[in-house]
């Protein structure tokens, strides 16, 4: 059996201390295989976002371990960690986090800029990704002037600019109407099925979760085997 691209052992995370102490995660162990599509499903406050942040190495766990491609993330130096985030992961956020004042293309090539890619190659790669998401004609537009669906596609383009192996999405359709949401969903699943990108999505939308290979239900910081509320 191949090494899982991401795996966790007894992952815990606590916020605050004393009477304000809040255990967001209470020992989560899981394995995600390369090319899989996984939905992390739970209500707000269940710890699903915390889990994704820990998987994406955006946050340090209180206890337990995260292994990326067989390597314990704790052993990685700051520089290696930055390179890993930059090269291996792509992020799609519900709130987009676009820089409205600059052009769509500039927004998309931000990860390449951080990586230190040359201007020419950056442009070529950025245009290729925009082409793929049918946004090439908007490349010069200000990001702030786009519609919600277009913005989400720009965010996906940005996440894909570095050819990531894992795409993290946090409520990718949360801010979109049903029709636009469906288009974005199709794009994400196409990337997973036809480009081999591992897709990890946090959502509370059960219809969206149903389209994934695997669903991890989380409640009060622990994985549960079935979706009890849904079943009930």
């Amino acid at each position, binding site marked *: 059996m191949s090494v899982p691209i991401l795996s966790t052992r007894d992952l815990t995370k606590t916020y605050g201390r004393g009477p304000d102490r809040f255990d967001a995660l209470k020992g989560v162990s899981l394995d995600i295989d390369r090319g899989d599509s996984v939905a992390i499903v739970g209500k707000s406050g269940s710890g699903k976002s915390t889990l994704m*942040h820990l998987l*994406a190495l*955006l*946050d340090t766990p209180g206890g337990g371990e995260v292994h990326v491609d067989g390597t314990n993330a704790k052993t990685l130096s*700051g*520089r290696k*960690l*930055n*390179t*890993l*985030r*930059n*090269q291996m992961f792509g*992020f799609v*956020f519900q*709130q987009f*986090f676009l*820089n409205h*004042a*600059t052009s769509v293309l500039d927004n998309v090539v*931000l*990860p390449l*800029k*951080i*990586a*230190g890619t040359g201007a020419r190659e950056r442009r070529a790669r950025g245009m290729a990704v925009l082409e793929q998401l049918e946004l090439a004609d908007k490349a010069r537009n200000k990001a702030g002037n786009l519609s919600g669906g277009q913005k989400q596609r720009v965010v996906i383009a940005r996440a894909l600019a570095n050819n990531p192996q894992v795409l993290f999405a946090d409520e990718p359709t949360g801010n979109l109407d049903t029709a636009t949401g469906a288009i974005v969903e199709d794009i994400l699943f196409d990337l997973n099925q036809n480009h081999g990108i591992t897709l990890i999505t946090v959502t509370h939308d059960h219809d969206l979760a149903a389209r994934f290979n695997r669903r991890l239900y989380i409640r009060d910081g622990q994985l549960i085997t079935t979706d009890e509320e849904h079943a009930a």
Partner: protein
Amino acid sequence: MKPLETVTTAIANSFRSKLRTTLTILAIFVGAFTLTITNGLGTGISNYIDSQVAAVGPSNAFTVTKTDASTSPGSGPQKYDPNTRVLAAGGRPGSTQVALNQSDLDTLAAIPGITGVNPVSRLSPAYVQWNSQEKYQLSISPLAGAQPQLAAGAPLDDAGSEPQIVLPSSYITPLGLPGNDQAIGQDVTIGIQDAAGTMHTITARISGVEDNALLGSGGAFANKALTAALTDAQSTGAPAATKNTWTAATATFTPSTKAQINDIKSRLTAAGYTAQTLEDRIGTVKTVINGIIGVLDAFAIIALVAAGFGIVNTLLMSVQERTREIGLMKAMGMGSGSVFALFSTEAAFIGLLGSLIGSAAAIGLGTAISGVLARGPLSDLAGLQILSFAPGSVAGVILLVMIIAFLAGTLPAWRAARQNPIDSLRYE
């Protein structure tokens, strides 16, 4: 992120909030403007003083007098020595100066480091006259080797046998000469009385006309040939003892470092002479001016420090505003060092802009004002450009402002750099 990318991104970022950046730049502008102006004032006045100093005498010469111990308080009267003579001297009425004689000159010439000794002859010409017109009183600067600032003509020729004179420009019109340029090459008659009261006349050619000077005595300058002729005429009939005594001598030395000069000076002191360079004599003027410039500079620095807090504030707001963006960039693998570099470069760039605009405005306005002043209120002090800007010191000001801006930017930059990506992304 590549260093060049950091710079271009920082520049682009600083223009994102135009009003805020503009206000900060204005604050820095005031500081840089003030600093450049005070600097220009310092340079302008120093330049002027230096040129004026050159007009008083050469910089590579001491004025040597015999040290008179009686002037120090509590020393009591000095024993009489038949070998010394005293002469009436300047200063308070009745003061005397122990005179130098030929043996003193020989002693001075023997001191290592001294290349030449000339007695200072006090010449007291009676009048100067051109073309049989009105006669005017004249004084002649006693120090050989002075380099007066000329409004017209050429410097004195000390090697030639033709008696030459440089007249202050204030003499030209009264003497009846048509103008500075026309005066060059004209012969003037100098009258001088000898010891017996007989008037001698000596003809000298005008080689140059001196600008109005700040430190100058208002007297004329004579070349060696004219000095010799005047000395001869003045001392006709004088007893030999007076002929060969002088109040002071000029001892020249090869231009050297301050330490070497002090060395020679201490040797002269040990031999019983008081030696002063030109620097010593007018050093106080410079000290006062440097003091004034220093105070003005201090005000400019205060303005700059205030502007520095403006930069801190601007960038802190910028960091606050861009919290999510910083978080996003860090999530995408941007290192803390790069984030720090990005924000501190932005600070330095704002500093650069402010100081460039400030310095440019100061240079433009300063040159204009200086020109107006030189033509108007300060026209009596010819050659004075009250504000002049040396490229080196202006570059120094710009660099200093950039350093202050950079330092001001480190706090916000550090705050931006240490942000946890996930906290930044959660920030609403």
